[in-house]
């Protein structure tokens, strides 16, 4: 899981060149808004993981109702999380690159889109295609949206050319919204994802048995008795090769005064691994006017464990995991987002700036290696509209 020196830079230069050509190709036929947006975020947590993410998007409207968008994302990841340290593996650094493209055509209250995404890191390559449609109904008082996505992934193991597994994901989403009163909107939907293939992680080993205290030689070579959560054996993780994931979600948004609104969202998740979860999110949109505002949010999430999850397996099972995200957990997130938009700036028709901060905390009630994880995400963004 080590990055290839210089690879990120080379790919970024290639992407920049591709993006420049794209802009030149479409610039001659621009009829409506064209946008360039860039976001930079920093994720850090107390599990020794840092991720810097940069996303650049460009979009143009080359024909009436049509929008073309291209994006490039890079994640720069550095981690020495407990998943690694507990397996005597050191810190790793790697980059993830993702390219995306989308075409949307909107006309008479209907819009259709096609999209493609490519993601690559040193042990993963994924291709995704998707299509979607949105319809305005009941004299624009309601909307209906449907989408489908197919993702084909090849999963490898860093530095191991002998390891290669595949994963296919089909995802369907059906959603709708309805204006109930001039100040109240409700929405809801159902999302289904079917995954078939390799769903474990090649770096994780389930824990079989538990010895409790083990005499572990220290760095100097002397014996030191440490209380380690020491498995009798580490068994390569085995997950079922099929997962059906269902989510039902609903929300209600109320416009209050001026540019202020309150929103409540709920999501119920359940899958065929018997993992179920509830998400409740409350948001407050505070706007001084349409160009300056803030968003406050709080999100609570709670889930049970997958049916085959155990921190230590007393006896070998067909399926064994060490994925803490399959253990019972709760999480809290508090976030603040500020945005400002200035219009008519010379050759720019608008310039938008955003700043966002999220604080989060996870509690794992049945994962003693990491009982809690907390951290923050800081993000800034700028968008220029031509």
């Amino acid at each position, binding site marked *: 899981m080590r990055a290839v020196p210089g690879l990120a830079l080379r790919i970024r230069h290639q992407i920049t060149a591709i993006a420049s050509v794209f802009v030149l190709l479409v610039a001659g036929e621009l009829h409506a808004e064209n946008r360039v947006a860039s976001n930079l975020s920093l994720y850090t947590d107390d599990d020794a993981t840092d991720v810097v993410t940069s996303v650049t998007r460009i979009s143009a409207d080359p024909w009436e109702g049509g929008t073309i968008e291209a994006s490039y994302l890079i994640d720069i990841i550095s981690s020495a999380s407990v998943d690694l340290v507990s397996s*005597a593996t050191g810190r790793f650094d790697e980059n993830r690159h993702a390219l995306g493209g989308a075409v949307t055509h909107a006309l008479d209250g209907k819009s259709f889109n096609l999209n493609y995404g490519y993601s690559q890191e040193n042990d993963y390559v994924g291709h995704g295609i998707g299509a979607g449609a949105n319809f305005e109904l009941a004299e624009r008082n309601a909307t209906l949206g449907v989408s489908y996505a197919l993702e084909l992934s090849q999963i490898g193991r860093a530095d191991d050319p002998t*390891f290669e597994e595949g994963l296919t994901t089909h995802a369907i989403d059906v959603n709708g919204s309805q204006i109930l009163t001039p100040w109240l909107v409700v929405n809801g939907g159902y999302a289904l994802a079917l995954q078939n293939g390799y769903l474990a992680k090649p770096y994780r080993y389930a824990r079989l048995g538990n010895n409790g205290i083990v005499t572990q030689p220290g760095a100097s070579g*002397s014996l030191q008795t440490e209380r380690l959560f020491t498995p009798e054996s*580490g068994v390569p993780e085995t997950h079922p090769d099929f997962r059906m994931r269902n989510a039902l979600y609903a929300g209600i948004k109320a416009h209050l005064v001026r540019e202020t609104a309150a929103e409540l969202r709920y999501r*119920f998740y359940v899958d*065929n*691994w018997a993992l179920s979860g509830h998400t409740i999110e409350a948001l407050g949109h505070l706007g001084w006017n349409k160009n300056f505002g803030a968003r406050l949010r709080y999100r609570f999430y709670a889930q049970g464990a997958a049916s085959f999850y155990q921190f230590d397996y007393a006896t070998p*099972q067909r399926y064994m995991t060490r994925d803490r995200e399959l253990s019972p957990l709760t999480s809290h997130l508090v976030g603040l987002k500020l945005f400002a938009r200035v219009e008519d700036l010379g050759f720019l028709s608008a310039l938008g700036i955003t700043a966002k901060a999220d604080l989060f905390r996870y509690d794992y009630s049945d994962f003693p290696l990491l009982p809690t994880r907390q951290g923050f995400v800081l993000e800034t963004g700028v968008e220029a509209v031509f």
Partner: protein
Amino acid sequence: MKRIFPLLLLAASCIENEPVTLGDVNFDTYRCQVQPIIDAKCSMLACHGDVRRPFHSFTRNRMRLEGSDIQRDLPLTQRELDLNYASALGFVTDDPDVSWLLLKPLDSDAGGYYHRGKEIFGGPDVFSDTEDPDYQIMRNWLAGAEEDPACVYPGTEG
């Protein structure tokens, strides 16, 4: 919604997760023939003589389950041998030729899996090919070779 939730729960019906056996291989063969190979080639402190490694092994003068510094050279205890055997079983499958315990230390040029130990120490992997005598001992063990229970593991004779 009253109809949808039961449907979702039905769709989420639990998968079967029955107990399995990790390799039905002879303990005495492991104790007397395989453990000495692991002692000599695998269980250095920087390698599999580290209890954090998924596959790890207690060995005289290296990682020990208990005891003080001056006791480190004592013969392996029955408990340590049991734990070493259990750790090895985690990498054993019914088909010997696809068992990680054989394929990880086998050089990739000879059909083995990636093994970081080869990178660390350079040169060929623990077993340069399948003709390696120690590879053959381990493969025979995985294929069902049975040792006399009275066999003596080197270092435990007294």
